[in-house]
């Protein structure tokens, strides 16, 4: 075996000082040479532990070899065999806890940059293959109709898979664009919206009909859909309802949920106000509460909108932060300040109802809790005041109850998640499947896609039998 190369090929990024003021993509992607250099480090392990670390079991050594062989169409084919949204996953998957963690070279601290290679292949496809992609033979129509609700990664994958099998699919989306969190949550500088819309266009090209502006549970209920002739329903409505801490002052002006802030900025393009009509107020000193991807995205958006100081306030330590490591590093490079082991006690406002400060506690870590992470405990008497003029609460989300409220026989668990079989996604309600954040609570793009794919398979089995 050749000598193992432990030099991970770095990916070029925009300079932190410059990117902190624009919404263009931060990471610039590999060149062909870089991709090959990185691919050449792969050991082609016969047992491919990397594949086991990927929730959708991509043949990772296979696509990497195709890059080395200069056979890009083959690399695309291998990736797409398991993952219909590689351009998205390559950018946003938490690789360090999935494929790259499992890579044989991880022990040596230099796993293959699988995500970056995946992104490289997907971007190659977008620029080169569109035209040369031979139109697949349309499948024979089965005459079966499926309603898919929600157009996030789960809904898009379920729709595509079912349409490819010849079923007639209608995708219902509450918002005015399709894409779910990929459109309204994850910012442009991390996931260009054009990439998401390319995937949406692909789904439409398979014959899927997308009904925007359709809030299921309001304009039509699940039972009405079934009665009107749909043979099955897949629910991929995510976990879009924001949580708050329920502490004094939380409704002051200038305190946004991350969902509201990110929706205004990303979906409604408030960063281009007044060219776009939707405004957003950005403070000079901004605090973001939370330690996940949502918190990092909010903090980095606030910076890009012109805030002078942006703080992340997180009640545990950096080791417990659920955000992707790469994004924590990016945030730090851009100048986001981390106030760890800190938690808000209450918000302070002025006479006109605007937030002016946060009274915080210092925290310390105790014994591990149910999540396996050490439980944060308030340090008594440690209160201090942080002056801020804007706050974004990124405290987690839960499924929106609109559908469950109008569908009594759809069973839900604590926190409103829909109960569904772990493998098949079948819910307790006849003819209804579910997958993604609606079942698991806020999780990842790739897990939502995996669940949708398994559910689509089970729905297809069911449709064949009726």
């Amino acid at each position, binding site marked *: 075996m050749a000598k193992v190369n432990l030099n991970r090929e770095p990916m070029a990024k925009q300079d932190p000082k410059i990117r902190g003021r624009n919404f263009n993509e931060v990471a610039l992607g590999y060149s062909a040479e870089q991709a090959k250099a990185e691919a050449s480090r792969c050991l082609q392990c016969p047992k491919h532990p990397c594949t086991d670390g990927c929730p959708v079991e991509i043949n990772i050594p296979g696509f990497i070899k195709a890059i080395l062989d200069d056979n890009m169409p083959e690399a695309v084919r291998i990736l797409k065999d398991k993952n219909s949204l590689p351009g998205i996953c390559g950018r946003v998957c938490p690789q360090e806890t999935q494929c790259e963690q499992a890579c044989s070279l991880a022990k040596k601290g230099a796993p293959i940059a699988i995500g970056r290679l995946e992104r490289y292949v997907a971007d190659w496809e977008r620029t080169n293959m569109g035209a040369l992609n031979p139109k697949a033979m349309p499948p024979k129509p089965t005459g079966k109709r499926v309603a898919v609700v929600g157009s996030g990664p789960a809904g898009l994958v379920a729709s595509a898979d079912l349409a490819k099998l010849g079923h007639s699919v209608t995708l219902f989306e*509450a*918002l*005015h664009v399709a894409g779910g969190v990929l459109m309204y949550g994850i910012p442009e500088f991390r996931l260009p919206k054009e990439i998401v819309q390319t995937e949406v266009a692909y789904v439409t090209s398979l014959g899927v009909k997308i009904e*925007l*502006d*359709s*809030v299921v549970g*309001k*304009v*039509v209920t699940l039972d009405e859909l079934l009665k009107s002739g749909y043979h099955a329903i897949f629910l991929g409505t995510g976990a*879009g*309802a*924001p949580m*708050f801490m*329920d502490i004094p002052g*939380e*409704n*002051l*002006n*200038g305190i*946004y*949920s991350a*969902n*509201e802030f990110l*929706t*205004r900025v990303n979906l*409604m393009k408030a960063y281009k*106000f*007044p*060219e*776009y*009509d*939707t*405004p957003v*107020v950005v403070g000079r000193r901004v605090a973001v509460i939370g330690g996940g991807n949502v918190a990092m995205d909010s903090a980095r958006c606030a910076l890009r909108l012109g805030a002078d100081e942006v703080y992340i306030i997180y009640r545990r330590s950096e080791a417990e932060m659920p955000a992707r490591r790469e994004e924590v590093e990016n945030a730090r490079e851009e100048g986001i300040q981390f106030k760890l082991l800190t938690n808000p006690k209450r918000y302070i406002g002025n006479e*006109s*109802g605007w937030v002016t400060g946060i009274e915080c506690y210092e925290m310390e870590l105790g014994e591990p809790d149910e999540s396996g992470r050490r439980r944060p405990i308030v340090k008594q008497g440690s209160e201090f005041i942080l002056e801020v003029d804007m706050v974004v609460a990124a405290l987690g989300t839960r499924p*929106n*109850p*609109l559908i469950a409220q109008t569908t009594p026989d759809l069973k839900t668990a604590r926190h409103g998640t829909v109960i569904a079989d772990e493998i098949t996604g079948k819910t307790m309600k006849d003819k209804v499947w579910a997958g993604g954040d609606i079942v698991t609570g806020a999780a990842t793009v790739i897990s939502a896609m995996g669940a949708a794919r398994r559910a689509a398979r089970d729905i297809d089995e069911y449709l064949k039998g009726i």
Partner: protein
Amino acid sequence: MFRIIYRETLAAKIHLFKMEAPAIAKKAQAGQFVVVRIDDRGERIPLTLANWDGKEGSVTLVFMEVGATTFRLALLKAGDSVADLVGPLGVPTHIEKFGTVVCVAGGVGAAPIAPIARALKEKGNKIISILGARSKNLLFWEDKLRSVSHRLIVTTDDGTYGRKGVVTEPLKELLEGKEKIDRVIAIGPSIMMKFCALTTRPFGVKTIVSLNPIMVDGTGMCGCCRVSVGGVTKFACVDGPDFDGHQVDWDLLFARQRTYLNEEKRSFEQWQAQVGKRC
């Protein structure tokens, strides 16, 4: 795209649009609203359903020009379309037989209250309506409200039509009168709803108001529409918009409604300048 089938100007700066929206029309109930977005640059604004027709597949909206979006909306003609119309959103107004219900409408509130009064009347309630406006040129739908009420009192602040004064005056007289009032429903500017609630409170008459905080999605996704009712935070778009007026934290509502005053002004001026140039 959602087409405007018919439009009419009802009063100064108050317009009616009948929109093609068959799916919404089929499900609409009194007290619900829709979210409108004019085009790709537009923001999402909530407007209450003033009427709907399941057979025709249409919904009717009545709005007042107060800022950029409503100004832009008012420039549209019959046959034009808006990009998005989402609904019916919100919990429908609670309709049952209460007895005697006073429906108080202020300004543009005459539109949303009409279907509520109609539904309550159909349930067998006695409806006394109070319709108020600042001045005669802002009054509309007097006939419509009369047709769904047993009695109608009209007021104008400046006395140019009907009784001179504000709506809370006849409301107070009704509460003090012989007839038992079982419920009050007040829809209009926030300040008017607050004063209606203050008027009814000493009489212990349940008073429902339809809150109008700033909204974005209207589906419970953003929390922009947070209001505090009975000390508990609610999302007006999914928990309301109807709430018990005696429990509402009005100061919080007023403060939050003022969040974007500066931006609203800037946006409005920009649009006026742009449209001015075009003409």
